[in-house]
């Protein structure tokens, strides 16, 4: 009997496919998310838009909040650790969190190195904007990916850019000849063996969700149509006027992402979504997607 194997860690993410993972800050929100059909919740101290508003250093959530959420729901519970923060990650693992997000939403603890995620029993999800970043994270042991988008903005434009970029680069690798892959690996900054695997599989070897800016059911369906395996929704749900209704509608739109009549129906009378931020109005230091290397 073996725990923490690659199959067990990646397999856990496979079970989340086609689903929505929702950011929550307490037990009550976690229950609303579970009731709405979320496949997992992300336990946080503040959702990304509040992290933006608060400024300062964003860290791992208070373990009390994580514990409260772990006890409140039967679906998997994820939590965020700062990039490169070995101890935050170990603490979350010790608490029994089901998945750790080594996340650019929090202030990085290490501006050079990410965690060696292979050493942990708990699986990790990491953000990416392109295939090089995706492959480096897998190389470090990430069992799941999510494109970064721009968290806490309610603006889908960066999420679209990143999922398109990653998938276009995957298609390119799949179509390349084997003798071209070493140079491509060098250009991407990606492990060569991983590109060989991508070419052989015809896809990434781990599940890739979309994140960072999903605010409406149509946004979620758009991500699925662009080839995401599922969707993370951060501020979009609990910063909307009617979270329970929004959560249900986003779950349904994710399942039936090509059923436009249905998406029209479930988008009716949803109330106001989160306000949102135009990306060009963000100062460079406020762009969370630039964090991670």
């Amino acid at each position, binding site marked *: *009997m*073996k*725990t*923490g*194997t690659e*199959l*067990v860690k990646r*397999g*856990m993410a*496979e*079970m*989340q*496919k*086609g*689903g929505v993972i929702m950011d929550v800050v307490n037990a009550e929100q976690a229950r609303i998310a*579970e*009731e*709405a*059909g*979320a*496949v*997992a919740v992300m336990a946080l101290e503040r959702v990304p838009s509040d992290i933006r508003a608060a400024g300062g250093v964003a860290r791992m959530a208070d373990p009390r909040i994580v514990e409260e959420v772990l006890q409140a729901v*039967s*679906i*998997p519970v994820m939590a965020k650790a700062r990039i490169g923060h070995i101890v935050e990650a170990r603490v979350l*693992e010790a608490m*029994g*969190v*089901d*998945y750790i997000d080594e996340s650019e939403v929090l202030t990085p603890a290490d501006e050079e190195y990410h965690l060696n995620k292979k050493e942990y*029993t*708990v*699986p990790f999800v990491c953000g990416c904007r392109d295939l090089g970043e995706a492959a480096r994270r897998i190389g470090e042991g990430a069992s799941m990916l999510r494109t970064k988008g721009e968290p806490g903005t309610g603006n889908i434009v960066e999420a679209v850019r990143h999922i398109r970029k990653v998938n276009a680069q995957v298609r390119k690798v799949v179509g390349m000849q084997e003798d071209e892959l070493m140079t491509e690996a060098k250009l991407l900054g990606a492990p060569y063996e991983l590109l060989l695997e991508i070419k052989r599989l015809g896809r990434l070897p781990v599940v890739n969700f979309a994140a960072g800016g999903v605010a409406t059911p149509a946004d979620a369906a758009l991500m699925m149509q662009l080839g995401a395996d599922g969707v993370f929704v951060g501020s979009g749900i609990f910063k909307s006027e009617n979270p329970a209704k929004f959560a249900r509608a986003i*779950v*349904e739109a994710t*399942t*039936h992402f090509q059923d436009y009549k249905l998406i029209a129906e479930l988008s009716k009378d949803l109330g106001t979504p989160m306000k949102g931020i135009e990306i060009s109005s963000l100062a460079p230091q406020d762009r969370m997607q630039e964090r991670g290397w």
Partner: protein
Amino acid sequence: MSKIGVLALQGAVREHMRSLEECGVEAVAVKRKEELTDLDGLILPGGESTAMRRLIDKYDFMDALKAFAAEGKPMFGTCAGLILLAKELVGYDVSHIGVMDIKVERNSFGRQVDSFEADLTIKDVAESFPAVFIRAPHIVEAGENVEILSKHNGRIVAAREGQYLGCSFHPELIDNHRLTAYFVEMVKEAEAKQFV
């Protein structure tokens, strides 16, 4: 050729489809209840059972799934799918499809850090089968007509009752398709019976 559906509301759908195709049958992703009508068997995949249940209710799938079972058509539940098939669930008052005479406990091996791989002996299937358990449930009690196919550390992790097959683990995640092949045989037997 037999046509077997995979309930495609959420979870490891692609893997089951691939496994079925490897076994030489046509695999269909089922997103709407109307798609159940011309199928010979159905796989309920791994995923999150609470999320699947919500979508089953939302799209009015439950009666269609129960009718599918009542027609005698084989159904195979893996992990979350096993939970959907069970007549009784530990700690819950109501079951889901509730057709297989077993009592199932959810997440009974612990959280994700306790998820594991183990080699199993599965009756009529394999002497050594590499099983992947992910936040897995197990069968706490089985009715008298239920045949126990495999146990792990004394816990029932695979069983069959007539047209129903259920397991705690994820045969779809590996390249060994013998358990899927066993289900495909169940489907073919059921089809043969209907034509008699």
